[in-house]
């Protein structure tokens, strides 16, 4: 049954759907400056020594911006890959399995990268 309220909310039987769309756009907008920061960081440190990378990440602004780029990037790519999966993989259980693996991959990338940035930044 479609009540007027449910029509206003634009939600069907799945009860969600616009969150990922919104998250995709929000992270995209944030990633415009953040990916430029990431590119600058990598251009400056791509061929740097280990000590140089540690010194660069000891700067809190640099480390926080890099962590922000990682978080926004991982959220963005998780939605993006889920859209691709939903477009091409229809058969069950492969569709759900792919979406779950997509979450795990994104989480692993985020946890590993942020752990590394934190460790380097804290000088441990």
């Amino acid at each position, binding site marked *: 049954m479609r009540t007027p309220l449910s029509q206003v909310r634009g939600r069907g039987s799945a009860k969600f759907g616009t969150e990922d769309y919104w998250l995709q*756009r929000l992270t995209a907008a944030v990633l415009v400056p953040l990916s430029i920061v990431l590119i600058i960081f990598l*251009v400056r440190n791509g061929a740097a020594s*280990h000590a140089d990378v540690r010194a660069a990440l000891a700067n809190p602004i640099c480390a926080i911006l890099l962590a922000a780029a990682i978080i926004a990037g991982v959220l963005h790519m998780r939605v993006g890959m889920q859209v*691709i999966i939903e477009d091409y993989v229809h058969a069950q259980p492969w569709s759900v399995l792919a979406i779950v693996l997509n979450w795990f991959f994104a989480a692993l990338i985020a946890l590993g990268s942020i752990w590394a940035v934190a460790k380097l930044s804290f000088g441990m």
Partner: protein
Amino acid sequence: MSTSKAKAAGGVERPLSPHLQIYAPSWTMVMSIVHRITGAALYFGTLLLAWWLIAAAAGPNAFATAQWVFGSWIGRLVLFGYTWALVHHLIGGIRFLIWDFGRCFDEKPRFMLSKLNIVLSVPLTILLWIVAYAVK
């Protein structure tokens, strides 16, 4: 689907909506496909960034191994491709954000924006690498 008909459960042939290969390629269509491909490439490419960061956190030896791999000719080739994918996806993303605001949907600006994507991404990527070598 190469055929325009599909067998339904009852054995009845139903028409399918036309898919990609039916249409003549246009700039908006090709750049949309490239946007998706570069996005998927960036997705798997995050493994490289994660590895590089984790290697740096693990210590000088692990970092030296990572730098050696990325510094090899094949490593540089992959990183060059990754740079282009990132720059291209970034510019393409700005185009989609412009469209999200309902701007530039007319025929001329629509195709102009799509062409601009590749026209900007290739020289910008080359420029980035020139700068990267210059600061090294």
